[in-house]
């Protein structure tokens, strides 16, 4: 058997990150994985949002079952578990969709994991090997890691592994300022491909979805943000003493558009009703994700 080319595999690891909660990160990650699978890829999504997992809900999985949390609690000699959710795909293509959820319901597992994370357990010795082994055994073309928005130690491992980072930001000054701060971190600076994806969405305290601005105003606002962000990114780089090359954070051309239907759909998420994009493939939000998936597909395939 040919040994796996880990350098090539590493190029297929996409980390989805946001600095704050409620930016639509998990929604985008799930629907992105779905689109990539619909495009014929074998996509594996890992819910690394250990404190507030949602992928099981988004994919409409029943509660319980093996999870990333279980693996992190007792990793010795085990593989990262996953379940095949290809049946969620609408098309009959050759794509496959795999999901590793995080534990939502088992309090003992959550407490054990919390204790391990609080102890500052270093997962850098086990996660890279386990992920590469998983990618090899599943034959995954792309691995999408949905992270938790903190500066926790385990996030350093996800960020240390990837070469394609999607930073989800809402279209407002606070999120953009946070994103600018995040880009100054050494770990993030090291990542070659950083894509800032603007999501025209915000949640209220009850997690109801609204938009930041009207969809028709997005283009204008985006042009303004691009000018501002480009200036800040450039001046940040000039301040640096290192000469690792230009700061290559890119603002993705097309923001993810808010959808009224998404708002209604999210209110029913607890019913585990499946993916939005599957139900509403031609909706503005879904079309945005389809386009983003094509961009990511090209980005990870071309290199």
């Amino acid at each position: 058997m040919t040994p796996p080319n880990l350098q090539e595999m590493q190029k297929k690891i996409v980390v989805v990150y946001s600095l704050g909660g409620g930016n639509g990160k998990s929604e985008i990650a799930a629907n992105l994985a779905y689109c990539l699978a619909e495009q014929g890829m074998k996509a594996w999504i890992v819910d690394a949002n250990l404190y507030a997992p949602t992928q099981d809900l988004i994919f409409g999985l029943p509660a319980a079952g093996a999870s990333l949390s279980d693996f992190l609690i007792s990793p010795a000699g085990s593989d990262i578990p996953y379940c095949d959710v290809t049946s969620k795909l609408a098309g009959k293509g050759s794509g496959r969709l795999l999901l590793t959820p995080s534990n939502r319901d088992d309090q003992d597992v959550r407490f054990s994991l919390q204790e391990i994370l609080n102890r500052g357990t270093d997962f850098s010795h086990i996660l890279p090997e386990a992920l590469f082994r998983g990618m090899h055994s599943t034959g995954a073309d792309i691995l999408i890691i949905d992270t938790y928005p903190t500066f926790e130690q385990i996030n350093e491992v996800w960020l240390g592994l990837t070469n394609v980072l999607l930073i989800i930001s809402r279209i407002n000054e606070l999120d953009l300022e946070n994103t600018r701060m995040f880009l100054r971190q050494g770990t993030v600076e090291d990542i070659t491909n950083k894509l800032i994806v603007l999501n025209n969405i915000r949640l209220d305290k009850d997690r109801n979805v609204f938009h930041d601005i009207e969809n028709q105003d997005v283009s204008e606002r985006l042009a303004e943000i691009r000018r501002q962000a480009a200036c800040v990114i450039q001046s940040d780089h000039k301040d640096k003493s290192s000469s690792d090359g230009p700061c290559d954070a890119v603002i993705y051309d097309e923001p993810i558009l808010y959808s009224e239907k998404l708002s209604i759909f999210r209110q029913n998420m607890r019913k585990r009703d499946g993916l939005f994009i599957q139900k509403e493939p031609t909706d503005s939000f879904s079309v945005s994700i389809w386009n983003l998936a094509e961009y990511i597909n090209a980005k990870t395939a071309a290199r």
Partner: protein
Amino acid sequence: MSNTHVPAVMETSPAVEEIQKVKALIRHLDALDTRIEQAQQDCNAMFEELRKDYNDILTELKHHVHNSVVTADRYGYDLIPDVPLDDRKLKNAWIALFRHHNGATADEIAEDLHRHRTTVSTYLNTLVLMQYAQKDRIGHEIYYKAVLNEKSENSR
């Protein structure tokens, strides 16, 4: 009849001849054994001498390699081999590791790169998986060493 009396017929019997042969061979073996032991002692002495020379030269070599890298850095020469690592962060981690010819811990490399220890440990463990580094546990510490071989090196 005396117990020590040997009949005349026995003195020239084939049995006596055999016993004499055995005694002679044993003496021969003893002599060879002594020579073997001497040869082993000589070999050990020579081996120790060679090993000492080898270690002395290796230490001197490491010292000069280290000095050459440091001096090259100072004068802007790049003596670091170009390994075919596409990933910029992994390559930087490998170069930092290469500068520690006796190996280094993740903490040491993190200090060199001004990066979080866990991040650097992720880089180093990925390099180990890609066979660009090896790791050894010595006591409580894990030491990493850059691996340079035909597979991993692009000659400059």
